[in-house]
């Protein structure tokens, strides 16, 4: 079981979510985050001072069985890509186990 954490452009979120829906991925948890990387940030002005602000990104967390891993990564990569700096990253983490609170099921059954 793996957790796929994708940090993407907010404007791409809708498309990615639908693409995952088509793969049969129903569950995900989503968070508003700010990020920086090669794409530095937005230049803002406050009463004569200019400064750089982190960029809004969307973090999607999807826990999947090992078998779906490749497919999900590929889908996200291809749908979220615009080719311009700032498209984001996908990180893969190991997951020990999962529990479905409603039923108490655990492991692969829970996701």
């Amino acid at each position, binding site marked *: 079981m793996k957790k796929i954490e994708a940090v993407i452009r907010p404007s791409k979120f809708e498309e990615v979510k*639908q693409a995952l829906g088509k793969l049969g991925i129903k569950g995900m948890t989503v968070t508003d985050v700010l990020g920086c990387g090669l794409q530095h940030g937005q230049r803002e002005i406050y009463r004569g001072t200019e400064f750089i602000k982190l960029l*809004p990104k969307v973090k999607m967390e999807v826990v999947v069985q090992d078998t779906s891993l490749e497919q999900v990564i590929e889908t996200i990569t291809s749908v979220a890509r615009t080719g311009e700096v700032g498209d984001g990253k996908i990180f893969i983490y190991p997951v020990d186990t999962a529990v479905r609170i409603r039923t108490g099921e655990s492991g692969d059954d829970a996701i």
Partner: protein
Amino acid sequence: MKVTEMLGRLHWRMIAILTAILIAVPGLALASEEGINSADNAFILIASALVMLMIPGLALFYGGMTSRKNVINTIMMCFTCLCMISVTWVLWGYTLAFGTSLGGLLGGLDFIGFRDVGMEPVDNLAHATFASFQMMFAALTIALVAGALVERMRFGAFVIFALIWSTIVYSPLCHWVWGEGGWIGELGALDFAGGTVVHISSGVAALVGCLVLGARTGFGKRPMPPHHLPMVLLGAALLWFGWFGFNAGSALEAGALAASAFMVTQIAAATAAMTWACAEWIRHGKPTLLGAASGCIAGLVTITPAAGFVGPLAAIAMGFGGGLFCFYGVTVLKHRLGYDDSLDVFGIHGIGGTWGALATGIFAVEAIGGTPGLLEGNAAQLGIQAVSVLATYVFVGVMTFIILKAVGAVVPLRAGKNDEDIGLDSALHGENGYSDYIGGGVLTREAHGIPATARTEAAY
């Protein structure tokens, strides 16, 4: 004297009289023929606009105090009162309050559908001005009640309740106090701008309402602090601003009485806000903005019945009492009694209104409003005030209970548990107060194949 001279004198007499009449005519035209004094009319029109603004102000005041997931529902309740009651006021509300009195108990149907309500004068104002001004009062009163019911009442049930309540509670009560021949008014009770009609009545209805509905899920187990305090402050500010129209406008003219009412309104509001904040400072070690904002409303409620009857120092005394009693009611009494008046409508409007109505009987000054109070030796006035308060409590309490039970027999009053959990905004209105980034967090319908006609449990 010669005849010619007689004629000559008659001639002059005629000229003088004609002159007098001609010159007096414009005056007459203003004072009795057309009757509308445009300064007064302008003032009351603006005052009406100010009172209208109180209702969205109230919506924000209340909306900011609820949790984030119920802000839309709360605002919607207030806003619906503004809109719905404006229409019913035209159709039947106004005439039931201000039509020719049927035995001091109810207005007749003379003005049904705003018949004859238009450009013709009523005393110094256009009839349309007076009727519009009163329209705002009617809408505001029932909107005030909403604050006790929010976060759990079903919207549809509230709409029906508000409609009936405004018709068979507000209109009659308004007639009793302000209608020509209304029995409370005849009694000599003083209520300048609505201490009983607006505040006690909404406060009592709120109390009965929240008792009938029962507490919000989780009440008492976790605090339910305001989700947006600047919105609360904004709402309080609009209320305060509008209240000048409410109180000074109730002079129904733009002269010295309006000025006096304006002044004491400001003083009482300010005093009560400071009183509440200081009480918190002493009791909790910190003065809060919510306390100051609640305090100013308490002060405004308190001065409402007295605005045209008392002077500046009495306003300080009344404001101080209003701040203190309401603070006590909201922070101590309520917790002891254990009822869940979501946004403390009874604690502020009920308690403040009651104190204000009684204090009017104490502090009234003959030189200002024509009636002396207890301090000027007229103890009877306090008694009359007490009777009017009592009558309002009993009438509104009983009627509200009956109406809610009747409505509850037809449609459920409370939102479902699940709707309360996810929030009434989404459940009942299909809206969210704030939608965040995340592309709006939207899953398109197609992706899940949910039919567009699917409805959640409490949609109606």
